């Protein structure tokens, strides 16, 4: 009598163990939907000349390998611009971990009120940037812009996409990131020389 009592749980236990260990199906990989793997900034000189392509690619997202930065296809972050030249600029964001690659720029433009690009130059660099697009409220988005390379100089230029910035804060509409707030979705710095 007493021994049989101990057998009951062992029986149930055996049932649990055999019942549950058969589902050896492997999990499916996660499709990282919001990932931005690639940012391409294209600068087209106004009045002719070849485009300058600034690119950063981080295929495995945050936490894996470091991003690869290229300028005109060459691994480098050094860009040279011509004194006195205006450039028409545009930014493209992609998620290349999907096939075909997903165009994140479209998402940004669909939610234009919640996104803004900033072009932050170091004080030594003499460039002027202007927004060439606007959201439904008349505030800039920054996918399209113009950049004027003024006098000969050199310094850093950082492209930053902020999610949910405060577009009505001081200076934000004219491209000053200082009081923009929000979260950084993507950011990359290039070293610019104007000559």
């Amino acid at each position: 009598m007493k021994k049989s009592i101990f057998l009951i749980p062992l029986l149930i236990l055996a049932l649990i163990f055999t019942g549950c260990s058969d589902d050896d199906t492997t999990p499916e990989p996660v499709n990282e939907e919001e990932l931005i793997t690639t940012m391409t900034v294209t600068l087209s000189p106004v009045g002719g000349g070849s485009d300058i392509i600034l690119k950063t690619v981080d295929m495995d997202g945050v936490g894996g390998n470091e991003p690869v930065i290229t300028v005109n296809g060459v691994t480098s972050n050094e860009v040279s611009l011509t004194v006195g030249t205006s450039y028409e600029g545009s930014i493209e964001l992609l998620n290349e971990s999907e096939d075909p690659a997903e165009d994140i720029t479209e998402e940004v433009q669909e939610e234009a009120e919640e996104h803004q690009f900033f072009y932050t130059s170091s004080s030594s660099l003499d460039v002027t940037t202007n927004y060439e697009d606007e959201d439904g409220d008349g505030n800039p988005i920054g996918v399209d812009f113009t950049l004027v390379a003024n006098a000969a100089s050199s310094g850093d230029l950082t492209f930053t996409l902020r999610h949910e910035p405060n577009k009505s804060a001081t200076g934000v509409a004219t491209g000053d990131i200082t009081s923009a707030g929000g979260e950084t979705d993507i950011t990359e710095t290039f070293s610019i020389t104007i000559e």
Partner: protein
Amino acid sequence: MEGKAYKNNTNTTLENNVSKETLERYSTGALGDALNSLSGVYSLNKGNGIVKPIVNGLHSSRIIMVNNGVRMQDQEWGAEHAPNIDINSVGRLTLVKSASALQYGGDAMGGVIIVEALKVPVKDSLYGKTMASLTSNGRGGVLTSELTKSHSNGWYGTVQGSIKRFGDFEAADYILSNTGLIEQNVSLRLGLNKFNYGIEGYFSFFSSKIGILRASHLHGAADQVRAFESNTPLIINDFTYNIGAPRQNVKHQLARIKGFKTFENFGTLSLQYDYQQNNRLEFDIRRGDDRDKAAMDLELNTHTLLLDYENDFEHKLDLKSGLMARYQNNFANPNTGVRRLIPDYDKYELGIYLLGNYALNDRWLLEAGARFDYTHLDVYKFYRTSFWEDRNYDVLYPHIVVEDLGTQVLANPNLKFHNASATAGLKYTFKDNYQLFLNYALASRAPNPSELFSEGLHHSGARIELGDLSFNSELGHKVSATIQRDHDTFSFSINPYVNTISDFIIIEPTKILETIRGNFQVWEYRQTNAQLLGVDIDAAYRFTDKLNFTHQLSIVKGYDRSRNLPLISMPPISTKNEISFEHPKFHNLKLALQSEYVFAQNEYPDNNFEVYVPETETTELLDISSTPSAYHLLNFNSSIDFEITKTSLLTVGLGITNISNTSYRNYLNLQRFYADDLGRNFLINLKFKY
């Protein structure tokens, strides 16, 4: 009804109880808030909705929570995962500050927290209570109700439910945007209690939706620099009851059935089966179609079978022994569109224990016990190829690779852990109301899935967290002593302890990683040798039959002995002093004024790092290590009873916390980097007992 109807969980460690009165006072708070009223307990918070108990400096997987005989399996490993127990369903709350309660598990490095329902008398009766509490801070409240029916033939049933709703809470000077919370709970109990046999079924459903401070959601180190530089949160909106992102939606279901039978000259055998399902959804601030989709979706299912034996109580020797078998499955839903932080796994556990105590005579009691646990983890995890190779796993574990997907590798680790734990202790009862408890507990804990498998961005910390597949079990040796005096006018207890843990798993920052989103700090788990030393003091002095004074002091110091550094996140020294006045003859009037002083933690490791901020062309030091200043809070509490009829009683309570509306930050609140803690709060509590 309370009192000696409950048996001790251990005999050579002093057990601490939170009274029903205290539990009711914390009705609007979390279980962790009520536990915090005990000496030696601090809490690890994320805002005010997520409150985890820290016992003698340890928390999360190092604490066992037992809810009505069921060991909670609710993804307790995470610092932002609060215990899924409704404080209003708790009848009795007991804390054992050591691993000596081996019947529940052998891995309680910090201690065991035991939640039980009140015993139902075997007689014909129908009773219950309804309680409503309203608070000014959070502009919300709690409604809770409970009804018990019992019968002289042994049948009984209890139904209990509560609903909690708050909007944004407030610090002294501003609104803490998106900190509202909603909680809905229901529990049912049905049982038959005969002298030598009985059966009980218990079911509880816990559901919570907790907002997380909007301003604490950041992307990377440069965002952190901006947030840290500001004295106030970067986002402060108008008060609202809406809970947006980031937030957690957690549902926990627990079903238990237990039966016991007593055999003459043998003892009592009990058999219990329980099932728990924990579903955790975490919502982040997202873009596009993913806006309303959870960023984390975990479902944890656990089945446990327990067989316990206890011998007759007539003997000088009390024996307890048992077997445990558990199966657990974690499923991480891939539809989130975010890489899994915790992988899919199956876990199998087997445990066996034997505990005994022997009363040598009226003064001496000896206790000893041992437990063995076997754990098998069968895991499927996608590793990033870069990490897989960086950790040299491609050389060490090539045989566990199931599939190579280019940037990811699917691996199938099978890990086995063997954990032995033990306890030995004595209790000596002096003349003159003195008692001495002396206990040694050997605890052994297998690493949890987070420590083994974390690999990627943890949004709530704006950092990358990396676990390690090669970890082995932690082994802790805790020696604790308590000298207690239980007396009408002057009572006290002094409880010093030393806890030495080898292969202690800690997470700490190791480097800065450049990513397409900017720089992120990388935190890696590692194993080291740790030691925690401390003392908990409780004292009570009765000036007159109406005037009482109580004192509490908790000190804990933690060190990484391998590197000679203090451990991170150790509770600062804190002391609570209370003067209370009670007049039982005048409507049982009670008034209490409490002072709570928390010192600054002066021992902490330096994990600060430098970040380049392109906007200002400067390199900024990100101070994540410095601890907040000391603070002092004053709280007032009062209650008065009114007899409505012979069998029903109305209790009206009024409380104020943080009377002086002090602005303060708590070292162990993860929200401290971004905002102050709670400001003043008025609380009204109406309790109707019938």
